[in-house]
């Protein structure tokens, strides 16, 4: 039997009266990417900080790479890489000096540390800028250096805490590419994110976390099908035909349809995909309703989240990091 690289059972953590984790369970199989998805303040960062030995849990237990995160913290630290919410690199030193520093602190000899630094710079496309001070790096470059610094010893378990928060789309793609390459190399990854697209792109399995506990898990597809499968969506050309279109779609697809006047869109959950689409298209045409677009689509993880928790994953303008007390 192989041990699970990441295993958490009933983790609890309180800050004063606020509960950050409240019976958090998680199991990540070897060689997979687990996406921990949830809004700010859901407890994602607290979970990662406990699993990476930075924080002591108040209750429950956790094992990483087969070792207890409290009793065998040194063994755990020897086998993990951590990418925190912001690039944890020295701004004054060059990229290469940073990697050599962290390699030396992993107790590689001077020559081995230099070799490893050059290898990692090469691998993350930083070889040409390795001697520049990090403060001249772009956000994406900084993040890639940060990732390289987490990979000095090629750790079997890697924790990425919101790795692309604050990056532009290009920087985000750079980081995604790097993570995919790591996973191809056999690493086990726990990734927290509040971007549903990111979980969709990278994760084999997603655990949805809200108020300190996991409220749903499964593959992105499984989670989406929890919403009752596919949806038929129709966009009408004229707003005054919206109500008629909704009624027609509901009748033709034998379902309930919702109409959104803002986008002139009719949406309806359907079971028999193609038959529903064909029937609806025929009925709309027969009723003389001008249709701009008609399509079947799977629900987004955003909708899954709303369905599971009753609120949207990203509270508007709430950028406060409630998970990390100063």
């Amino acid at each position: 039997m192989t041990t699970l690289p990441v295993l958490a059972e009933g983790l609890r953590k309180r800050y004063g009266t606020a509960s950050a984790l409240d019976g958090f369970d998680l199991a990540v199989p070897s060689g997979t990417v687990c996406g921990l998805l949830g809004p700010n303040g859901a407890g994602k960062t607290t979970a990662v900080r406990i699993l990476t030995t930075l924080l002591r849990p108040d209750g429950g237990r956790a094992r990483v790479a087969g070792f207890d995160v409290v009793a065998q913290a040194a063994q755990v630290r020897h086998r993990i890489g951590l990418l925190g919410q912001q690039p944890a690199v020295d701004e004054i030193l060059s990229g290469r000096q940073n990697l050599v520093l962290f390699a030396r602190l992993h107790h590689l000899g001077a020559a081995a540390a230099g070799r490893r630094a050059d290898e990692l710079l090469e691998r993350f496309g930083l070889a040409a800028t390795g001697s520049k001070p990090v403060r001249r790096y772009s956000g994406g470059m900084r993040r890639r250096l940060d990732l390289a610094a987490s990979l000095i010893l090629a750790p079997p378990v890697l924790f990425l805490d919101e790795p692309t928060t604050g990056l532009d789309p290009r920087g985000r793609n750079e980081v995604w590419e790097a993570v995919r390459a790591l996973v191809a190399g056999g690493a086990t990854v726990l990734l927290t994110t509040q971007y549903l697209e990111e979980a969709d792109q990278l994760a084999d399995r997603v655990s949805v976390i809200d108020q300190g506990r996991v409220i749903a898990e499964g593959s992105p597809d499984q989670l989406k099908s929890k919403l009752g499968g596919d949806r038929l969506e129709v966009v009408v050309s004229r707003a005054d035909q919206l109500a008629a279109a909704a009624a027609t779609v509901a009748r033709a697809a034998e379902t309930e349809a919702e109409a959104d006047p803002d986008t002139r869109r009719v949406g309806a959950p359907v079971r028999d995909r193609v038959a529903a689409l064909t029937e609806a298209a025929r009925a709309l045409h027969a009723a003389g309703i001008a249709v701009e677009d008609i399509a079947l689509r799977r629900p987004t993880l955003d909708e899954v989240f709303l369905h599971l928790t009753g609120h949207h994953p990203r509270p508007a303008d709430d950028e406060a990091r409630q998970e990390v007390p100063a």
Partner: protein
Amino acid sequence: MTTQAPPLPETALQRLRWALTDAWTVTGRDLAHWTRQPAGLVLNLAFMVMVVLLFGYLFGGAMTVPGGGSYREFLLPGMFALSMLFGVESTMVAVTTDAARGVTDRFRAMPMARSAVVAGRAAADMLSSTLGLAVLLACGLAVGWSWHGSAADTLAALGLLVLFRFALIWVGVHLGLLVGNPEGVVAVQVLVWPIGFLSNALAPTATMPGWLGAVAEWNPLSATITATRELFGNPGLGGVSWADQHALLLAVVWPLAILAVFVPLAVHRWQRLSR
């Protein structure tokens, strides 16, 4: 190519070796900052020289030292001690920057010795403060200050200054972890100046109103300054208060007291990071 992970230390001796190696690596990081940003280092050194010139020549003419003697001879021991006090700011800035940027967390999630983060910081700060003191000594000699005691007394005076700085490292580590963000550091920096000036560094306490003079006399900074004036053989002595009469003793006791309070506080703050 994969990199072979070195095995973790098992015996106490191996652990000690790791701790020392790690501390030296962390110190080396700070020394690398000097070569990467020499301007910052030079500016720091030039600042204290500027303060010496400012007080020595701009205000110095209006000052009389009780018991006679040159004001600059009186001033320099105060400047040496002040530069040690101001060092607390650089310790704080370094600690806070690492904590705020997540570098401290990266260190804590690595298999390195945890003591090395603070030990390396302390070693680097002692080196930079010692360098600063050397520059200030040269500056003092250039403006007419000198030591008049024996070599042993002179070394003892330097030792007291370095001891004072060592105690302040722990104040800096504690405050740096306590405020946790660069904005908070500014607030503490504002407080360092009055603490520095509320001493006998710039003016003899005898010239101050009674209550203010008493506060200044009992400032730990004043003890170090009076003791070093004594050991260097510089003017401005002759105070009659208990603190003035026992400056040498206080110059040792105060730093030890600061250490006794702030080492446990800093360690406690460090452990609180896990809570």
